[in-house]
């Protein structure tokens, strides 16, 4: 391999990994790696940027902080948690990746993710697509009307918005109302079928939270708090988030 030898002198300095270990319960088991490669075998991002989860962790263990904090690979992780699900040592690689993302300056982070986070902060509904609450309400009502008319079995279908005191507050990924509005209907049908008392809201209605993927903790918290307040303001007990 063309890469330079890694010189390891008296004490491996892995400042980054050690810091992450302090943050996590049981240190996220980060030291426990058997290098079996199960994580890499199941990771959708293996091979991208010449990186995979095992290699990422290995480099962290060897103190190659500069390299792992620079690689774009951390942004290719989908945070799906397949790795930790089956890892024999239950190593919290997702958190290691997340913490690596956090070290990036906001302006260096991928524009798409940061942009989506910014939109969410800007809109009342926390929509990463920037969809307005009026548009969302309109689309829901429009689609509902259409379905009730066209499908005999859906005559009594409901999709309430801002219904106070409902049992469930349902979030909606804003991709659907914006680009694929028909995709919302199946879930309505299920909820209707089981007789659930539910509602959308015009505040904090979007399910997605790109601020989390962007590892922008303050913004992430702000988005969550806004949604929580929306649920409470409508006097609802249960919050359903499909993301």
């Amino acid at each position, binding site marked *: *391999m063309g*890469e330079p*030898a*890694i*010189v*390891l*002198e*008296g*004490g*491996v300095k892995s400042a980054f990994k050690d810091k992450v270990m302090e943050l996590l319960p049981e240190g996220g088991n980060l*030291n*426990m*790696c*058997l*290098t*079996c*490669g*199960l*994580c*890499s*075998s*199941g*990771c959708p991002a*293996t*091979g991208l940027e*010449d*990186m*995979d989860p*095992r*290699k990422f962790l*290995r*480099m962290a*263990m*060897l103190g190659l902080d500069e390299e792992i904090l620079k690689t774009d690979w951390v942004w290719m992780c989908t945070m799906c948690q*397949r*790795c*930790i*699900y*089956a*890892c*024999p*040592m*239950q190593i919290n690689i997702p958190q290691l990746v997340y913490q690596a993302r956090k070290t990036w300056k906001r302006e260096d982070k991928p524009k798409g993710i940061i942009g989506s986070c910014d939109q969410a902060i800007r809109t009342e509904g926390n929509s990463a697509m920037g969809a307005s609450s009026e548009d969302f309400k309109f689309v829901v009502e429009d689609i509902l009307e259409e379905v009730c008319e066209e499908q005999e079995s859906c005559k009594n279908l409901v999709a309430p918005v801002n219904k106070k005191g409902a049992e469930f507050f349902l979030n909606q990924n804003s991709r659907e109302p914006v680009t694929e509005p028909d995709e919302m209907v199946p879930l309505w049908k299920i909820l209707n079928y089981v007789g659930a008392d539910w509602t959308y809201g015009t505040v904090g209605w979007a399910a997605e939270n790109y601020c989390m993927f962007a590892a922008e903790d303050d913004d992430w918290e702000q988005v969550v708090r806004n949604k929580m307040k929306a649920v409470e303001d409508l006097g609802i007990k249960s919050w359903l988030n499909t993301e």
Partner: protein
Amino acid sequence: MNIELHTLAEVQNVSGEEGNFTVTVKKAPRYVDMEKCIACGECAAKCPKKVDDEYQAGLSKRKAAYIPYGQSVPLKYALDGENCIMIQKGKCGACEQICPTQAIKFDDKEEILDVNVGSVILTPGFKAFDPVDLDYTYYKKTPDVVTSLEYERLLSASGPCAGHLVRPSDGKEPRKIAWLQCVGSRDINRCGNGFCSSVCCMYAIKQSVITAEHTTGDIDQTILYMDIRSHGKEFDKYYESAKKGGINFVQARPHTILPGPDGNGAIIQYADKSGNMVEEVYDLVVLSIGLQAPKDAQQLSQTVGFELNKYGFVEATSFEPVSTTKAGVFSSGAFNAPMDIPQAVTDASSAAANAAVMLAESRGSMTQDKVWPEERDIAGEEARIGVFVCSCGTNIAGTVDVKAVSEYASSLPGVTLVENNLFTCSTDTQDLIAAKIKENNLNRIVVAACTPRTHEPLFKETLKEAGLNEYLVEMANIRNQNSWVHQDNPEKATEKAKDQVRMAVAKAALLQPLSKMSVDVTQKAMVVGGGMSGMTSALGIADMGYDVVLLEKSDMLGGNAWALSKTWRGEEIKPEVEKLVAKVENHDKITILKKAMLKTAVGSVGNFVSEVDVDGETKAVKYGVAVVATGGKEYKPNEYAYGESDRVKTHLEFDKMLDSGATSSADSVVFIQCVGSRNEERPYCSRVCCTHTVESAIRLKEQKPEMSVFVLNRDIRTYGLREDLYTKARQLGVIFVKYTLDAKPQVSASGDSVSVKVADPMLGGRELDIKADYLVLATAIVPNETKELVELYKCATGDDGFLTEAHPKLRPVDLSVDGLFVAGLCHYPKPLDEAIGQAQAATSRAGVILARTELPLDSIKSEVTELCDGCALCVDTCPYNAISLESYEDKGKEHRRIVTDKALCKGCGVCMATCPKGGVEVNGFTMDQLKAQVTSALAGL
């Protein structure tokens, strides 16, 4: 005869104490009268109720009237009360109607009985891990993902597909098979089994090798592993030969197994060592499932009152490895920890030794001797030969046409009866042979099956049972010498089997009854070697009440143990050595000879005599048995800058520094594994070095957490519960790097530091350049020189210089010479607890002989004939010094002739081959008998 067997039994209560327990046993009803059942199988044939067959891992059905498997002991049928229609619903009774001996007892009741015993040995075995909850394996969700136990049945001649391997989905023979290691082992996430199951690597390799033998044409087999743990004796050679035989070993672990196309086979995706994704479709995937504590371990521990460790195995110490925390209660086998058969059999003998020591006072007070039926005199009878041709499942019948061989045998002169059996060695077949002997008045038996080495004793017993002299049986080895080696040519194999049977029949016709022989036993033992193993054996034998002479070549007892600090369980070793030395030195039955060397050894089991050089003085010792425990030592390497720099140490050298705290100034320490092991010169694994290294690494990290510790290894082999140490070492931040033989670490030393360069496969082979304060070499364990001893006793060593046991699985502590036993490092590298266990096992085995005053001998001995003229040629060639000359008078003239010491003679026949005039013959292998065999062999030419 001296074993009382209670089946369907469960321990309900144990009261009393060491030496006097009352065990309350609940016996579930069998619903079959054991006295009446003749195991004809009619009940099972008629029974209409089919249930999953546990023995076949649920792959096929059995009846509610059943035996678990063909070799069941006792061979008596049982009704499965939970499934029997009559017992559950009061209707049916088919078995009762058909049973020819009225053995069915629907009204059989549960029985509670009290057994009074002096000690208790627990051997409940293990429970196989059930992977059904590991959703990502797709086990039970797609048919061609099976467990290794299910696969074992698929592969077995007595399995549901009679040894013709097919996959469950469509019944086709799989051509591409993958094994997944560590399923339910070494996993603290999806199951609590943080330990290594110790045996799965070897059984997976074995299964793959056998698969290649059971299938035709090319077959693609891959074992996906984390570390290959072939740490047992001769195991690494097996692993290497499997690699050469084309089995793929891939260090990788798939995440999810997916059903294959159309639901057949399975798809596996994995990242290889360098992180490249590989996707393969396999016809069959085998999950190498681990061994867990038995399911009622907890209940048993409460009932009996002993402790379990966190994994549910028996809590024990390294110095009393088979003793539970309750006095008088011992345990052996996989209940102690996952282990393989040689280890479990050794363990069983250790438990027996502990019980025997405890019960020494009452030894023999309740035992009985077997009385055989009177032998029928066959003098003057024509040969009436019975031939039993074994199918050995498909082992023989898969290649040799056993029907054709049987038919052919009926045409041979002197043959009265021919039978073909699925397993001629099974208990029911023994009964059948005995019955046939009586029915047909047979007076010679030929068994065409496997090797007499393992099976002749069994058939001899059967003959005795039927009232025939035990030497009237002849075996034709149509398995090892035929079907196993001629699989690719069944037609010629069948012809060869006919030749073999014809030869055996020709010889059998000339067999004569041989009279019984015995020798008196000197009830005294000699133990060679005063290390922990030798001392343990000596103490055990002495505690059983026999005199022991213990030889130690140095002037101090204790051996290697003085150089060791702690066991893998963390116990201090030196105080235990001191205690043992004191016990041995103060025992009135033990004579210790220090600075002692064995000079001569004559005699045989029961009666040995040796001259021992004790510090220049010769002493004669008479003994009945000997335990050889001559030990081993740490190999001193000539690589990795050892000897060039005082910063490069072996384990034992580094241990001294660790003990003194001299290591605390270091900032970085590197260990290199397999130094002098697993290479061309020493192709064995030294078994203890991986555990030793992780222990030392842990000590370093505990002394100084910020120290860098690297372990460069080929596989980490912290087998069994030792895996916890490996886990702990990693937890503390020790970094493990794999290397291969073709890219060994490069070491250069200068001044106070050592530079170690190694490629890290996990980084695509990128080089690590480690600057270390110390380099520790985990060097091999080599046996002490045993050449002289081996020559004196005529026992054997393997290629690596370790003493060879009589049979690795069945007789793991017996040497090939009767009356000699082996323990400790001279047998194979092993940790202290295993050495002590083995030494206890040797104690037990020695006790079997020492408990008798008289020992029966084999009657295959050389004997002088009237043609001997006393030329003495054979006296010199006899390898056992069994022949001497004597004078006798005939018609007033003095003559000389030879005489054989029956106790020394092994019946090898060297004398007979040497003698130019037929003056000596070996009974059972006389010139006439051999000639008949040779003539018969050439009959077809």
